[in-house]
C-alpha cells in the first residue's frame, strides 16, 4: 500500500530507462492482492515540423506547483478507483527521440480499476501539470510542444 499523504517527487533527470520500469514491476511481486497492472509510457517522436525534424525534447517544469498538482491528482484518483498502487514518473531535461519521457503505473485487484485509473491519470497529467516540452530540431531551431 502506498497511499502516502504527502507529495512525492515524480521528476527524473533525463529519459526513463526500460530497466527502471522492469524494477518497478518486479517490486510489486510481493503485493499478492494485485491482479492487474496498467502502464502508460510516453516516447519522444521524431516528428517532422515545418521548421525541422525533432531530435529531442527538453522538458522543464514549475516543479513545486507540479508536485502539488500531482499529489492532488493522485489523491483524487485513489479516492475514485480501488487501487493498490500508483506511480508517476516524468522526465526533466533532454530526452532523445525514441526514449521514454513519461511512465504511469497503476495496480489493482481487478483489471478495470487499474486500466481506467491509468487512462485518467495520463489525461490529467498532460492537461494539468505545469510542464513544458521544447522540441529540439535538426535545424538548430526549436518549437514549443503543443499537447492535443
Amino acid at each position, binding site marked *: 500500500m502506498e497511499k502516502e499523504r504527502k507529495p512525492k517527487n515524480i521528476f527524473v533527470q533525463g529519459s526513463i530507462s526500460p530497466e527502471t520500469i522492469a524494477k518497478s514491476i518486479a517490486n510489486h511481486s510481493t503485493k499478492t492482492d494485485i491482479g492487474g497492472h496498467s502502464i502508460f509510457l510516453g516516447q519522444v517522436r521524431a516528428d517532422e515540423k515545418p521548421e525541422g525534424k525533432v531530435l529531442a525534447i527538453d522538458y522543464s517544469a514549475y516543479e513545486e*506547483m507540479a508536485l502539488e498538482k500531482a499529489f492532488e491528482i493522485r489523491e483524487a484518483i485513489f479516492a475514485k478507483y480501488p487501487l493498490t498502487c500508483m506511480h508517476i514518473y516524468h522526465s526533466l531535461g533532454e530526452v532523445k527521440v525514441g526514449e521514454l519521457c513519461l511512465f504511469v503505473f497503476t495496480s489493482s485487484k481487478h483489471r478495470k480499476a487499474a486500466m481506467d485509473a491509468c487512462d485518467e491519470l495520463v489525461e490529467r497529467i498532460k492537461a494539468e501539470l505545469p*510542464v*513544458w516540452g521544447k522540441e529540439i530540431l535538426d535545424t538548430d531551431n526549436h518549437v514549443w510542444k503543443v499537447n492535443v
Partner: protein
Amino acid sequence: MPNTIHIKAFGMVAEKIGTTELVMDHYQDSEALLDALLVKFPALKTIKFSLAINKKLISNKQEIPENAEIALLPPFSGG
C-alpha cells in the same frame, strides 16, 4: 522586502521576456499586474499564458497577497 511580487516565467513566456525570474512592484490584483506586464513586455501580447498565484492557477481577477509568488505559465505540454 514588502510591496514586491516575485514572478517566475516558464517555457515560451520565459523565452519571450528573456528571463525566468523577475521582481516587480506590488499590484493589488491580477488584472492590474497583467496590464503592467503587457506594458513592460509587449511580446506577451502575441502568446497565450495563464497566471498562477502561490501555485494555484487563476482564471478570473484575483487579489494578490503580500509577497505572493506569481508564475506566468504557457499552455502545458508535458508527457
